[in-house]
């Protein structure tokens, strides 16, 4: 709880109904998905609750955020900002912290359909923004976490691969102008929003040196470097007709598949061959989706319940499948893309098992277009987290996958993680194969201590393995302990990160539990 005198000052800023420091509210905000795993890795009790925040505050404008942050500095209270709030990264790392729930900041500020960007506040969801951009025949990048999460959070503060990454890129690469409340309460406007004359949102760089790298770096600071209150990011052409017709009742919707849309699943049998096919397809720059998943993952993206996975045995038994969705706006474009695919399949002697061995429900195509496929990782409604998170070349990503199988099998044998034969990965290309992402989604039981501890151990060993084998940094390198572990192996980047933290947050007010402290 906050001291009465401090609480009153916050109340004066946002109104009494928009701050709450009660036991009920603060405990509810202490919960998050995978928090038991984080606690376990920090040798705490493996429960899904973080330290309890002092209060929850709901600002409605950048000015209110600024004043809140200044009050935090005055009273040496840390803050943690969250938008849609999925995942442990939204949690405070100490009890001397308030949570800024940015839910009331939910405006789409601008959709510039000529210059292909949108400006949004933190609590606009990906699906909301996409619904509006579809009215302009445009779409937006959404991370694998799903269309219900905040694209602002992904663009400014998280990693951000998604199923449509071949077409819509990567959150780090899409971010343009940014409005940023620094940890000392100053407002910084990045890129062209800082221009003296005609400020606008179209560029994230300049005037002067670009600060985009400092703002988010590889995987974002998770509110450890301030609060992002508006962001502009790129929009992309919607890949086909935006006519979107669904019939039936959830979840068994029937979708009228657009005229120029086709799914391919090819079983490449082994990783070496998969690499060649992956690169060949992506070199042609024709795919809307181009992902490799394990057999289980493949079954999951076509299933809407854990039971219906059972029907997917023909497809789940593939060895190195590649999932490709092509889509087009004209018949000519569609014909061209199909010709290219036919040529690649002929060259590599591969068959499309869609339409022969397996035909998915039409809903798959709707979910592909609305970026809902990543959520299928949750169909077991159980513990689920990824180790790995490499962003690199196709050979390295696949090498990581292959080399990690024995390690994963070790934990499968212990019975602490679900059996995906060690092959459980999701790999996508970014920007038509210019680079690639791989992560290793793993199911565990978040309700049993044995499984949580086993999964934590599995993640720790994976991190160590990545270091020893030079497989790059996973995307959950967060907090002092992890940065101190990886930094010395990576040109002492952690020392520079600390300097940034110290310069931007001299009082250490932005909670750094998932970033880095200035110590």
């Amino acid at each position, binding site marked *: 709880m906050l001291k009465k005198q401090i609480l009153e000052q916050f109340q004066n800023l946002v109104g009494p109904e928009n701050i709450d420091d009660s036991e009920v509210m603060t405990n509810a905000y202490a919960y*998050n998905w995978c928090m038991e795993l984080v606690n376990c890795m920090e040798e705490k009790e493996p429960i899904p609750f973080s330290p309890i925040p002092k209060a929850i505050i709901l600002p409605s404008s950048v000015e209110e955020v600024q004043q809140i942050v200044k009050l935090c500095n005055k009273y040496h209270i840390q803050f943690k900002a969250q938008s849609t709030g999925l*995942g442990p990264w939204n949690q405070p790392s100490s009890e001397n912290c308030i949570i800024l*729930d940015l839910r009331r900041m939910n405006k789409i500020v601008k959709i510039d359909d000529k210059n292909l960007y949108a400006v949004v506040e933190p609590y606009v969801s990906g699906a909301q923004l996409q619904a509006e951009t579809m009215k302009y025949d445009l779409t937006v990048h959404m991370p694998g976490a799903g269309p219900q999460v905040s694209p602002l959070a992904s663009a400014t503060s998280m990693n951000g691969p998604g199923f449509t990454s071949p077409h819509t890129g990567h959150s780090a690469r899409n971010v343009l102008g940014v409005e940023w409340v620094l940890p000392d309460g100053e407002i910084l406007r990045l890129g062209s929003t800082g221009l003296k004359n005609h400020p606008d949102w179209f560029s994230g760089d300049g005037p002067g040196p670009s600060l985009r790298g400092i703002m988010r770096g590889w995987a974002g600071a998770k509110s450890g470097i301030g609060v992002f209150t508006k962001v502009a990011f790129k929009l992309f052409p919607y890949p086909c007709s935006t006519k979107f017709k*669904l019939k039936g009742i959830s979840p*068994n919707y029937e979708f009228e598949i657009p005229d120029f849309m086709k799914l391919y699943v090819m079983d490449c049998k082994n990783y070496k061959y998969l690499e060649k096919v992956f690169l060949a397809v992506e070199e042609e720059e024709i795919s809307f989706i181009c992902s490799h998943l394990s057999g289980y993952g493949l079954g999951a993206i076509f299933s809407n319940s*854990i039971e*219906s996975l059972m029907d997917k045995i023909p497809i789940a038994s593939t060895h190195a499948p590649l999932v490709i969705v092509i889509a087009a706006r004209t018949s000519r474009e569609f014909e061209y893309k199909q010709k290219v695919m036919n040529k690649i399949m002929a060259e590599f002697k591969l068959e499309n098992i869609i339409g022969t061995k397996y035909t998915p429900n039409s809903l798959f195509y709707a979910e592909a277009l609305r970026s809902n496929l990543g*959520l299928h990782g949750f169909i077991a409604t159980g513990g689920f987290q990824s180790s790995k998170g490499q962003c690199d070349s196709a050979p390295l990503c696949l090498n990581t996958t292959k080399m990690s199988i024995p390690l994963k099998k070790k934990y499968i044998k212990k019975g602490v993680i679900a*059996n995906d034969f060690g092959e459980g990965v999701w790999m996508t290309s970014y920007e038509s194969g210019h680079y690639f992402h791989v992560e290793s989604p793993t199911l565990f039981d978040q309700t049993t201590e044995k499984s949580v501890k086993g999964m934590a151990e599995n993640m720790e060993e994976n991190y160590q393995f990545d270091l020893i084998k030079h497989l790059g940094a996973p995307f959950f390198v967060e907090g002092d302990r992890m940065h101190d572990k990886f930094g010395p192996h990576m040109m002492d980047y952690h020392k520079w990160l600390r300097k940034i933290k110290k310069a931007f947050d001299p009082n250490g007010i932005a909670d750094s539990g998932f970033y880095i402290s200035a110590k």
Partner: protein
Amino acid sequence: MDEKEYQKMIKRCLRCSICKWIPQVQIKSQKYATACPAIDLYNYHPYSGGGKIILALALEMGRIKPSEELRDIVYKCTECGNCAIACKFLNTLEPLEIIMRLREKLVEAGCGPMPKQKAYTDAVKNVNNPYSEPHENRMKWLPDDIKIDPNAKLLYYIGCTSSYRRKEMAIAAARIMNAAGVAFRILQDEEYCCGSPILRTGEIHTFQEFLNKNVDIIESKGIETVVFSCAGCYDTFKVDYPLYRDYDFKVCHTVEFFNELLEAGKLKLTKEIPISATYHDPCHLGRNAERYEQWDGEEVKLIPLISINIPPKPKRTGKAGIYDPPRNILKKIPGLKFIEMERIREYAYCCGAGAGVKSAFPEMALNTAKIRIEEAEDTGADVILSACPFCSTNLQDGISESGSKLKYYDISELILMALGLEPEKLKHVLAEVA
């Protein structure tokens, strides 16, 4: 939901916030993307379906105690079930059932329901209706010229709200049945509250008393079919009663029944009604009107840590809701132009009145109704229609409060007009209610 399942489920919320939105693939605009009135109005995460699952877990773990603050959050929920539809698009949790169970636990702990809801419950116990109206006035809505057949096998169960507060619905339903030549009876002074208000505020034991009383009476009279014009009574009889006790009569809502009469040619809608209208799916008639299916399967470990139900355990996803009959009726009304809102059928936005909210939190009910009225207005329709007395009262309150030019009718009133029956009589009743 039994205690074992409750304990299992409250540990599994992913905090993904899917419950705050209509199914993602159905989102058509930023404005009408949300699913839950409580989180829309009160913003803090615990007001959402997932947030209440977290509260349930925190309570079980002893991190929080039963308190007025906890109670207020748990009862600021219309139990509309939209969170459950969204969650079950992929997941296996039952947010609505967890909320209902959490309310039961608060009642057991002496912390629930809300004081105003307690007054309603006491009224049901004392005078068989939540409005504290004299039981002997229950049938006062009945005009002299309505033909009742005391030996009919079809029962029209009017319900407390239509009997005392929305008499125009009861009169319209009765006149339509007369017009179709359907022989029906009513229970007269043996009709009691269905128990819905007490069930949904967590007073499960009192609910069971009323359930037994009602089923005993209906079965003792050899009734074959019970017709309801109240979506709440219909849902309670259809979905909730069988969880405690089987019965041997059929149940249907007037929109189903009238649609059948129209299809059979027993009703002919001939009078032109030149309006443009939109339809609000009541939660009790739509997504929640789906029975629990008996499941005698077993949970089988597929691979370590992943179990599946064999055969698959049926999920209540709103698939058995009554969506098409009211729309079929509207299509048959000459001159009526029908326009859909964005949030319809299994993901329709709630009117805001349900589960004791109208009594305990009238401002929440009203503000929710205003959101729904705005959505109806955005269709360009002149009229909003529905088929539930709670929705009727609350949406009409929303129209008045927001100064909307929309008119509200129950679908049975519109049928009555399209039959060319004397709407003056109905107007008289409307004036009386107003």
